[in-house]
């Protein structure tokens, strides 16, 4: 079953790109957490462990043919939905939200898993149909339901950031699959209605975040503090930056969450516009490579899968960067490969593994 061509066609570019970004990320974490009291394992070392585990998972995922996923998509998706229900019933609560399932040796976050499963199930659905004029409302009813069920469960936790990303990923796949113009207009109107209703269903702190985003100076010491300090960090970096480990905003702790959601702000402060430009180009290259993998995929299922994974990376990058530079509201979305966190790293690497898998099997029939 194992084909030697698989090795010759292995996507070294993607692996190199991912390792490069993650390497810069670990360097940045070293600086961001250098002022922390020496405790157990330093954060950057832990991130290195997570990166190793992630790479291991990615390579493991290359071992089997991604096309099997088409058959496993339904049971995997269903299992994930069950887990989401379980979270609401018997989940672990932390900081006002119930997101984790205690599995004894580690805490599983099923909502994070759903970012992947929604790709599997939608890739399968859109692969089976290909209307010339695009999908209409009736044909979209099934994917809509497939999206709505887990999204509502995730919102209930509540975890607005993840729910939003799941929707963005699904919408990206759907839009690419093709939707009739009339249907698109109808969906647009429905979407606006949903936003209106959604606003009323939002939690107080969530509304507050959006209000604060629209006017951070409204509450400079409260929820606006994050955005203001992040903008100061990024802006004060200037063209060449303040130098590695020299960022005053981050080293003196004015910047909150600087090892997780605001890791990029640390980087931007210390490396300036030059560093930001290089990092952004690397991310652009990663996303473009994902699209390239989709384009060269062996079949439509592979294409949809690759597109879904790419969309997942893209939206994480855009939402996180948009947040830290004050273009989007503060939602707890990590920057892939850059923010500290095992969950984010594993999810990203699962995606990367799937991309590698599709890429190396582009000539297989």
């Amino acid at each position, binding site marked *: 079953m194992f084909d030697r061509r698989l090795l010759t066609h292995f996507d070294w570019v993607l692996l190199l790109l991912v390792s490069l970004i993650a390497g810069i990320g670990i360097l940045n974490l070293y600086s961001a957490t250098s002022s922390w009291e020496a405790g157990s394992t330093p954060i950057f070392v832990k991130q290195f462990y997570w990166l190793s585990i992630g790479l291991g998972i990615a390579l493991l995922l290359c071992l089997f043919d991604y096309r099997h996923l088409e058959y496993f998509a339904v049971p995997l998706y269903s299992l994930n939905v069950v887990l989401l229900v379980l979270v609401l019933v018997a989940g672990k609560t932390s900081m006002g939200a119930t997101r984790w399932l205690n599995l004894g040796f580690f805490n599983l976050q099923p909502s994070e898993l759903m970012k992947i499963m929604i790709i599997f199930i939608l890739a399968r659905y859109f692969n089976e149909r290909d209307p010339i004029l695009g999908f209409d409302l009736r044909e979209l009813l099934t994917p809509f339901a497939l999206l709505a069920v887990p999204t509502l469960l995730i919102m209930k936790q509540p975890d607005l950031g993840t729910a939003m990303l799941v929707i963005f990923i699904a919408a990206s796949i759907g839009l690419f699959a093709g939707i009739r113009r009339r249907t698109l207009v109808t969906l647009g109107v429905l979407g606006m209605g949903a936003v209106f209703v959604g606003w009323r269903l939002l939690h107080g702190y969530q509304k507050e975040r959006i209000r604060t985003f629209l006017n951070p100076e409204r509450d400079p010491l409260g929820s606006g503090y994050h955005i203001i300090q992040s903008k100061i960090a990024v802006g004060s970096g200037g063209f060449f930056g303040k130098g590695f480990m020299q960022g*005053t905003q981050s080293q003196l702790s004015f910047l909150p969450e600087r090892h997780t959601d605001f890791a990029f702000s640390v980087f931007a402060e210390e490396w300036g516009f030059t560093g930001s430009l290089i990092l952004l180009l690397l991310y652009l290259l990663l996303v473009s490579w994902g699209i390239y993998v989709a384009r060269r995929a062996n*079949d439509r299922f592979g294409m949809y899968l690759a597109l879904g994974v790419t969309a997942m990376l893209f939206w994480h990058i855009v939402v996180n960067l948009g947040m830290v530079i004050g273009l989007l509201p503060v939602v707890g979305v990590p920057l892939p490969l850059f923010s500290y966190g095992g969950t984010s790293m594993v999810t990203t690497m699962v995606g990367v593994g799937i991309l590698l898998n599709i890429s190396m099997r582009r000539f297989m029939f």
Partner: protein
Amino acid sequence: MNLRSSWVDLPRLKNRFTVLTLAVLVVFAVLLLRLWFLQVISNDRYRELSEKNRIRYLPVAAPRGPVYDRNGLLLIDNRPGFTIAALRQEVEDSTLMLDQLSRYLGTDRAILADNWQKGKKLPRYSPAPLAVDVGRDIVEQVQENAIDLPGVVTLVKPVRSYPYGDMGAHLFGYLGEITEKELRSGDYNDYRGGEFVGRSGLEQYLESSLRGIEGERLLEVDVKGKELRTLKTLEARPGKKVFLTLNAALQKAAEEALGDQSGAAVALDVRTGEVLCLANRPSYDPSFFARGIRDDEWLDLLQNRRHPLQNRALKGQYPPGSTFKLVTVMAALRSGLVSPDHTVHCNGKFTVGNRDFRCWKKNGHGDVDLKKAVRESCDVWFYEVSLQIGIDRIADAARDLGLGRATGYLADDEKGGLIPDQAWKKKRFKDRWYDGETVIAAIGQGYVLVTPIQLAVMTAAVANGGKVMRPYVVERVEDFDGNLLLRHEPETVRSGTFAEKDLRVLRDGLDAVVNEPHGTGWLARVPGVRVAGKTGTAQVVRQSEEDLDLKDEEIAYEHRDHALFVAYAPAEAPEIAVAVVVEHGSHGSTAAAPVARAIFAAYFQKDILSEPVDADAIGENE
């Protein structure tokens, strides 16, 4: 390659990939533009904001300049004042902190809590002062228990201290915290809130010299306000050193001699006009002001009936009584109308028109010439003489001796007194001058008003040959390294207006007052030094015939006469002139002369306690 599945080559999909790629490029371009805007275009603004985040400017208080007496004794100093304050961002449990502090400080918890609340109005990282100017032992207590008191800090700033207590309080002046109104007024541009400025006396007059230049420390702090390192220090520059002409020993002697009485005593060097002492009683404790006076303390001072805040030496205007006879004598001699031999018969009263003016000595002095008139202070002689020369000559002589206007001691901190003449009367009351007014003016009553420092200047002029000197107390100002910045030179305001032979006649009389039998000033005698002077008793209220027979103690305090004494010494070669006023002291000879005596004794370093007054020739009480 042509084996690749055909689905990808569908133009429909091809278009979609193109659109997708373009969309991604656009989004990344937007992100990059935003970064360009933040990091390149708005860099200056954000760099400033980040500096503001991490850098705190900490003012370093500068001590005010020290003040020394003429012998280099430190009169006004600074001591470290400790304030217990709390850094709000580091206090975790304010209830616990206030409880603990209340225990260590022994201060009412409610007061601390009140200060804690007030501190919340201060800028974000300013420490909130909880207890101001606490003792060293309390500071030690707090520092020993620092672990239990997170966020509690001790601030040190220099506070004015007065090694001699309330001595010279009026001369030195007091401080007050700068008001918000003053800060806004534009007159105090480089001052900041909480600073103390001179409010009276030398502290006010020399504010620009005495005030130190505040220093500044640039600190790098983290988000919790914790000080990480000092980036730059601008040292505080202490105020200038001021050296006075004052002699602390004389000042002390004068204030002690005045004791509980209300009054003032001024001593000048007759040759230069240097102020040797300038004493006022009652006094107040200037250290109350240095630490920030409390409302109740301030009210006490204001409402005290004896007006402890008043600088009587400069601002107290008194009828000079018989001390004014120096002026009348000089006016008489200068006029050429009266010779020293001019003799008047005193039978105890003098009649002008249909009114009798009494001599202080009921039974009269008999035949009186100039010297006897001065020695025994015979009023009738002066009544008679004053009518011969007229009020305007008396007024001229008074002005030529420095009376009737401010002596120029310190800018505008002084009253001018009043020397009446015909023109003044006309202007003031639109009325002509009456002879009855001349006779009482001649003995320093009626409209005449003088300040103690004017009397001292007058006496010095008589002693030094007719030179009216401008009194001054600041000898020199030096910067902290000892470089001379300012030195006062003696300044003669007026001279040559009196003939030396006339002055000698007066001085003979003044010598007799103290040293001859029947002289009224014998209580001013100092062993080994020849003192010359003149007593004075100034009526506060006109007394009726019956009242004249009352004993002093039977008259209400406010109605008792003021006691005055002017003198200089040594009589043969004068160095120091003294003027003393004791409010309601009844008799110049008994209440005021001993004060002058104490000052002379201090000046000539004579021990007057072991050597009682030489009483071989007892004079009389005027």
